[in-house]
């Protein structure tokens, strides 16, 4: 059944292809196909001419005459004063144009029957423009699909031709709102080579127009293209008046969308386009994802730490998308040249041609099951045909410095604080030991003395017995404070990026070669970590015959991360240990030998080597069956190999942990670290596609795509470990003699789909798009393999309508978009419909190793099926103020229905988690705003502002939790909600009547709400502890029954979802100088975490773990107005989730400031373009975290926040050159 309907779809595809092929003989196509039949490209036309020091405009005119190919250009926009020399002897037009245009800032483009000279960005090579003709899918663009951005207005001289019956068209082109004549507009007659340019009075004249009815097209950059029907009689003159409506520049872009391209003006879905050069150019960011942060509204990019090579998390419209997406969350499908990439780390940003973000179902659905949460479409650069080689080299040299380090509490204060915590439960205790170090009054006094005597001296790191430490009465004391962060982290670390791009092409082929290298050094002072990336990309395009084009892509990437082996417990890392203890933790040496500490361990560690190799090859072909009809086939294979070499060993140091009277110099680590391990992972992906595209222009323009795709991914991993190294420095399997361990995993999944799309456009005014996709996924049971997901979108260009006349002068362009549709979500976890038994370690050791065992098969629901993600999107695009201001706005609601979740709560007696079913529903809703403003002043100064702002929230709209218990999901819950108490203040002595002598507990005074319900064990709320607010006014602070209806005195005190995310780019260009700044931030976000950086003592299960300098502000009888509560050890009571210690993670960060200068072109320098710049990254941050030095972008790692790899600020300089 399923298979049959798929076959039908395929049959339909073929039928369409066949029909179109037959109709190719139809008269409608004759004029157009004639051109393509005689020569595959106008650019291949041979020209011979000699030019010496003539202005560019003249040169182009000569070329046109010599080649008899219409060349369209706008003389007013060409650089004045520059002169061109060119001698051609039967060279191709392309080569001649390349020679003439070199360094002019202009490129060219072949459009059906003419060559258009267009402006290109300074730092882009000529080759970049070639992509317009040979698109990703090999569809050549006809004039109608080329944006007027390309048509700079033109003056064309036509070779005279004798035609029997012909007349004349004359007329004016005026501004639609002002009625002012528009000069330099291009007016052409479709189906002919007739083109004219308006004069200063807006008048034009077209001679020798064949008699009959024609469509004339009037266009000019900055205005919407107008089409009109004109009937010309033999020997007569027809008069036409054309009104052009201005449009914003941004609307004229060619946008890459699923399986094709569209003019932005014609988009009906919610699609954002990233200005690649602005977002990624000349920024010292290591990877694409970090560069995209804040650029596209709705796209949330976050990082957990500043660690190098760490994969940023990418989310589109929301955080989780579904309760079942796991660590992926609402991650969009990321496609590079049409095929998914696992990691954007692998991609060299210099290889990128364009990035589009497809946000709603209607735009993304053509990609099917894996695109439930949108698609990020990235295309890479290709070469230009007929262009000589262009070399582009750019580099970036930068220096990074850690953004924040923590200052530990002064050691003497720390002793007092820890003792205060100890005495809470042992009032007479006046000393304590931690990992062998004694803290008492003596220690406190000696620490103070040390500070007074040596605090301002620069002592060597060698510790002196008696001065810096002492063994007294069998106990170990340390007196000398250290700053572990300063010792561990370098102030500045270098980073470099180099990129070389070579592109060009012959008459029928083009090539593009990209080479990239990134080298980052980590912050560690000793045994520094490092990250390297090598990229090679290759793109080849060729027309094998006049009907067959082939394309091939090769992409290779290798990343190499070296980090010191981590000896301390695997659950934490060296960052945790660095900030775990007090400042007197001995980081110096004694007798030249180090002590047991995190720095020593890093110093003596071998470097682990993590190498990821990614290779991808793809081949594709486009068969042009007839004008407007193509069939494309693509196949891509990618493989990722990850190889991790862990190189353990041992650490020799003075061991004092658990001090028993003497320091011992030894390898203090257990045998489990004395090991070597190799881990390898392999991921293979096969992607195949076959689809047909048919397009037809005219008043009722439409495009039809239908086809199918399949994807198969196989993953496997393997790990081998062996203990007992013969030599710590040579951690290799063959050089180890002890126990051996192996493990591995394997999995696979596949998807299959058939799709169809129809785009219809009526007079470029009414736009309609219909999509349908029939999807299969291996993630579902046999009888649920398939799902059908349709979507539709429509657009209405209101400013094309006469009744919108009244807005003219202010509103130049206004389009309303609406879309609705669904996509299936298959990211629900693998094999959830099977009663799986997982193999695992039993933890029970037998003589031949730990016994394996199998988990209990879970209870499963046999009828699991797809989750459906439905998006409704409403938006508009507008340009105002003579195209200077562009605004795009979208409001959406995305509903994940049939969400797999427990449909019922079973009692514990069931003995297993309740089987899941398609029960829940999650709704994401939000809005996105994008604003552009560009103005060029008469003195040449150009000002640009680009801003994005977005907000979105996700809400559980259906979930089985009838009691609305707040520890689970419940209906009406916003994802990220934090339930907590409202902090009133700290308790003071006056709040109590005193201590009950029989129980030793404090008695609450009159009018003070009783907090006993929050106590447990021997803890008793007293002066200095947190006083919560009695929200329900019952005189008792309680947790209620833990439901929404009775949460006690708790309420939702915040939400961890980043809200009001924004990005703002300001740029000014003037006389070759450019300055730009990029600001990014989050408007609202709360976060609750009980790390010792946030809630002192909360996670210090041992006395004397680190406190930080700002935490000295705790309650004491002489500091009653403190921020922190009276110290206790392992304090669950004072640091329950509450308002006072909730982190405000909103921020505004100056992500980048760049100052560049483009050197004027000098005839004696063989360089086409050269730009030098300096750039700073993460320069300033505004946040509301008070004195807690946590980076507002940090996430939780190893169950702690803040004590992790630091974020860094970067200063850099670099160059970009083309020659």
């Amino acid at each position, binding site marked *: 059944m399923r298979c049959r309907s798929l076959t039908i779809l395929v049959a339909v595809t073929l039928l369409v292809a066949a029909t179109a092929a037959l109709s190719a003989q139809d008269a409608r196509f004759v004029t157009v196909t004639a051109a393509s039949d005689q020569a595959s490209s106008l650019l291949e036309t041979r020209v011979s001419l000699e030019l010496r020091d003539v202005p560019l405009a003249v040169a182009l005119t000569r070329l046109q005459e010599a080649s008899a190919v219409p060349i369209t250009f706008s003389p007013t926009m060409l650089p004045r004063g520059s002169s061109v020399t060119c001698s051609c002897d039967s060279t191709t037009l392309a080569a001649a144009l390349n020679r003439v245009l070199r360094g002019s800032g202009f490129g060219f483009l072949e459009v059906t029957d003419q060559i258009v000279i267009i402006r290109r960005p300074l730092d882009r090579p000529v080759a970049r423009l070639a992509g317009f003709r040979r698109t990703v899918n090999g569809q050549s663009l006809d004039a109608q699909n080329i944006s007027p951005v390309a048509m700079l207005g033109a003056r064309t001289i036509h070779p005279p031709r004798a035609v029997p019956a012909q007349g004349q068209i004359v007329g004016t082109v005026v501004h639609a709102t002002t009625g002012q004549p528009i000069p330099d507009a291009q007016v052409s007659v479709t189906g002919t080579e007739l083109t004219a340019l308006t004069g200063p009075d807006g008048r034009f004249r077209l001679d020798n127009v064949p008699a009959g009815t024609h469509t004339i097209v009037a266009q000019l950059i900055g205005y919407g293209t107008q089409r009109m029907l004109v009937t010309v009689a033999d020997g007569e003159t027809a008069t036409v008046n054309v009104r052009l409506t201005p449009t914003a520049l941004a609307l004229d872009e060619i946008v890459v969308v699923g399986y094709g391209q569209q003019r932005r003006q014609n988009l009906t879905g919610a699609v954002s386009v990233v200005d690649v050069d602005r977002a990624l150019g000349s920024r010292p960011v290591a990877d694409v994802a970090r560069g995209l942060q804040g650029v596209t509204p709705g796209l949330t990019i976050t990082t957990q730490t500043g660690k190098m090579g760490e994969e940023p998390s990418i989310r589109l419209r929301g955080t989780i998308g579904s309760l079942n997406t796991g660590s992926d969350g609402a991650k969009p499908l990321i496609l590079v040249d049409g095929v998914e990439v696992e990691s954007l780390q692998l991609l060299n940003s210099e290889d990128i041609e364009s990035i589009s973000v497809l946000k709603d179902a209607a735009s993304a659905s053509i990609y099917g099951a894996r695109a439930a949460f949108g698609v990020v479409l990235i295309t890479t650069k290709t070469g230009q045909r007929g262009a000589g080689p262009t070399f582009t080299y750019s580099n970036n040299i930068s220096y990074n410095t850690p953004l924040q380090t923590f200052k530990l509490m002064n050691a003497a204060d720390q002793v007092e604080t820890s003792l205060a915590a100890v005495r809470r439960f042992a009032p007479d205790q006046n000393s304590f*030991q931690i990992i062998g170090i004694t803290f008492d009054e003596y220690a406190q006094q000696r620490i103070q003395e040390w500070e007074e005597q040596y605090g301002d001296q620069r002592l060597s790191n060698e510790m002196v017995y008696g001065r810096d430490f002492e063994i007294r009465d069998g106990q170990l004391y340390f007196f000398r404070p250290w700053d572990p962060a300063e010792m561990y982290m370098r102030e500045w670390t270098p980073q470099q990026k180099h990129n070389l791009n070579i592109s060009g092409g012959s008459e029928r082929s083009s090539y593009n070669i990209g080479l990239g290298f990134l080298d980052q050094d980590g912050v560690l002072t000793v045994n520094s970590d490092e990250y390297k990336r090598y990229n090679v990309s290759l793109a080849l395009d060729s027309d094998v015959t006049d009907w067959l084009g082939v394309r091939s892509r090769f992409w290779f990437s290798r990343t190499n991360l070296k980090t010191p082996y981590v000896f301390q417990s695997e659950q934490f890392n060296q960052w945790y240990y660095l900030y775990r203890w007090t400042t007197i933790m001995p980081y110096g040496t004694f007798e030249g030998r180090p002590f047991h500490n995190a720095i020593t361990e890093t110093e003596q560690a071998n470097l682990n080597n993590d190498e990821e190799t990614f290779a991808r090859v793809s081949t594709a072909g486009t068969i042009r069956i007839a004008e407007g009809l193509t069939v494309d086939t693509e196949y891509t294979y990618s493989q990722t190999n990850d190889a991790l070499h862990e190189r353990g060993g041992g650490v020799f140091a003075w061991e004092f942990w658990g001090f028993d009277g003497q320091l011992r110099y030894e390898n203090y680590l257990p045998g*489990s670290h004395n090991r070597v391990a190799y881990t390898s992972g392999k991921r293979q992906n096969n992607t195949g596609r076959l689809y047909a595209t048919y397009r037809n222009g005219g008043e009722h323009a439409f495009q039809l795509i239908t086809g199918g795709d399949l994807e198969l991914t196989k993953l496997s991993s393997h790990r081998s470990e062996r203990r007992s190294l013969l030599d710590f420095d040579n951690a290799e399997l063959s050089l180890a003699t002890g126990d051996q361990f192996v493990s591995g995993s394997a999995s696979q999944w596949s998807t299959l789909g058939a799709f169809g799309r129809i785009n219809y456009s009526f007079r470029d005014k009414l736009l309609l798009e219909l999509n349908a996709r029939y999807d299969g996924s291996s993630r579902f049971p046999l009888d649920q393999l398939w799902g059908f997901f349709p979507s539709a979108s429509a657009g209405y260009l209101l400013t094309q309508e006469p009744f919108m006349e009244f807005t003219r002068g202010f509103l130049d362009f206004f389009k309303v978009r609406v879309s609705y549709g669904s996509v299936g979500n298959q990211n629900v976890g693998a094999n959830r419909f099977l009663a799986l038994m997982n193999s695992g370690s039993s933890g*029970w050791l037998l003589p031949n190793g730990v016994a394996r065992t199998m988990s209990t098969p879970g209870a499963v629901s046999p009828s699991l099926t797809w989750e459906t993600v439905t998006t409704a999107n409403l938006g508009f695009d507008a340009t105002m103020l003579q195209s200077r201001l562009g605004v795009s706005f979208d409001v959406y609601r995305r509903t994940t229905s049939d969400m797999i979740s427990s449909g019922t709560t079973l009692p*514990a007696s069931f003995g297993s988690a309740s089987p899941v079913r398609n029960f829940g529903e999650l709704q994401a809703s939000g809005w996105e705003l994008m604003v552009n403003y560009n103005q060029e002043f008469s003195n040449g100064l150009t000002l640009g502002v680009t801003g994005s702002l977005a907000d979105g929230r996700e809400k559980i709209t259906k979930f089985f939790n009838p009691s609305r218990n707040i520890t689970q999901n419940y209906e009406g819950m916003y994802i990220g909600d934090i339930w907590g108490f409202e902090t009133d203040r700290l308790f003071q002595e006056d709040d109590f009547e005193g201590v009950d002598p*029989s129980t030793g507990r404090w008695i609450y005074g009159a009018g003070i709400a009783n907090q006993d319900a929050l106590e447990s064990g021997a803890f*008793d709320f007293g002066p200095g502890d947190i006083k919560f607010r009695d929200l329900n006014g019952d005189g008792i602070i309680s947790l209620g029954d833990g439901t929404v209806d009775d949460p006690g005195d708790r309420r939702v005190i915040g939400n961890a979802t980043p809200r009001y995310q924004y990005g703002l780019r300001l740029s000014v260009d003037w006389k070759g100088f450019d300055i730009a700044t990029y600001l990014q931030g989050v408007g609202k976000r709360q976060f609750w975490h009980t790390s010792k950086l946030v809630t002192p003592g909360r996670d210090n299960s041992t006395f004397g773990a680190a406190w930080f300098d700002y935490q000295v502000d705790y309650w004491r009888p002489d500091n009653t107005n403190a921020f922190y509560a009276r110290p206790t050890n392992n304090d669950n009571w004072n640091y329950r989730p509450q308002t006072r210690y909730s982190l405000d993670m909103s921020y505004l960060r100056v992500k980048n400031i760049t100052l560049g200068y483009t050197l004027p072109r000098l005839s004696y320098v063989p360089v086409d373009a050269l730009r030098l710049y300096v750039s700073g990254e993460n320069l300033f941050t505004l946040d509301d975290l008070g004195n807690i030095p946590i980076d507002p972008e940090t996430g939780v790692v190893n169950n702690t926040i803040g004590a992790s790899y630091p974020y860094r600020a970067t200063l850099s300089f670099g160059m970009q050159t083309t020659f």
Partner: protein
Amino acid sequence: MKSVRYSLLLVLAASMPSCFTDDFLTRPPLDQLTDDNYWTSESNVRTFAYDFYTDFFAAYGTGYFTWGGYFWGSINYRSGVNDDFAPFVPTQYPTTVPNTSGAWTFTNIRRANLMLERVPTVPMSQEAINHWTGVARFFRAMEYADKVNQFGDFPWYDRVLDETDPDLYKPRDARTVVMDHVLEDFLFAAENVRIEDPLTGPQGLVVNRDVVLAFMSRAFLFEGTFLKYHGIDQSKANEYLEAARWAAMQLIEGGRYSIDNEYRGMFSALSLAGSPEVIMYRSYADGEITHSLHTYVTVEAQTGVSKDLIDSYLMSDGLPIGVSPLFVDDNGIDHVMADRDPRMAETFVNELRLSGLTSSYSTTGYAVHKFLNESIRNAPEGTNSNFNPTDAVVIRYGEVLLNYAEATAELGMLTQSDLDISINQLRARAVVNMPPLQVLGGQPAANGVAYDDPARDPTVSALLWEIRRERRIELVMEAGLRNEDLRRWRKLEYANTQNSDVNRGAWINAAEWPAGLSVTIEGGGTEGYIIPASAAASQRTFIDSRVYLSPVPLGQITLYDANGATLTQNPGW
């Protein structure tokens, strides 16, 4: 050329539908099995069974746990209340009913029932089916005994429930009903589980008939005495005590175990393979499975034992300190340890480790020797957080003998010969060599002298008092048993700390110690007993007998209510 073009199209078109098959989308898991294809061999059943082990035989556990996780039994979710330990902050009794509880779980019950249902379908001999059925029933019995121990009445299930089963909301079955089933399970297991199963693994590391019998004696001693002292059902109490006695007797008569000459060796050995006394143990090895207990004994601070425990050690003449002429006083560790039951020196070091003077201090000064392995005393694996490799006793013959003696005594059947085959075997251990416990005219006696400990709880008979003392001393710090003993005897008030020996440590004279000393001395002077929990708010008092049973989690009660069923709460909660 056109024909090439169209044939190419045709080939492409023809190849496409062939991809559109369900086969392409049928991707069964590659490294996982399912309930449908797993049950194919005895070795698979064996693999399945290992998952139960660490739940029921946790021993020292793995990874980090604070001092006492093992001693208090908190590894098994039990309360940390007893009279042996004197922490700075005594564990309090719970006061609130939790909404959820990790202990109110049926996961293992479902697993055992699933195993029971699958085992008969596995192609293997009837003997093997019986053996593995026995193993599954043993695990089910262990789980239910544990649930009854903690909650009392508990719903009994002998099958895997599906989500629509009306019995999901079954009321709690009376504890005697459950324990009758548990008894059936144990008896079946005792009959059918193999005495030895070399294929399964070395004896001592796997469930065999002796393991079943040993745990049976423990479970039914608990239940028998609990029913008796809590006045629940005297006839069932007797029946269960008989069961405990029978199980212990099987092991005694089986003759496969004997007393190990070592005492401390059983708790500190790197390998327990070959110990004649250890019925089951958990094996640990460096780099594979390790624990943290040894680190607490060597370098970490430890919760010390109370004066109450120290005072309960007999003198070497077999008499309590209140009676024996050998006892002088407890001023100083030398006095304390002089002429005592040698198990004291096996259990505690001959020095006081005091707070403020060493990081490996004890809250009471008394520090543990029992679990120390001298050979790794200073080695990384002996001192480094959770990397300790010493093996751990799961259950031993010594406990079985104590179970036998106590069950027999509770049944009123105890004779001198019962003592001679049980407690006196322990006293005859080479390193212990204490005078045997005698019965003279119903009174305890040593060396032919009857005595009555003046410190005796008057509600406990003199002979039973001695049997209980023997148990406390012999099994001190083992697997949280003391807490269970106090609960089944209904004696939690022993663990009160206010002005009690439970909150006293060693006697010291502060003047004799260095200045860093940081302890609270009773009465505030410079001489006297250490008071570990000095804050008034820290004291623990037994108030309500409801704490003998844990509260049923509120969430489950509400859920039953919402489905028209009733789940009763334990009394007092």
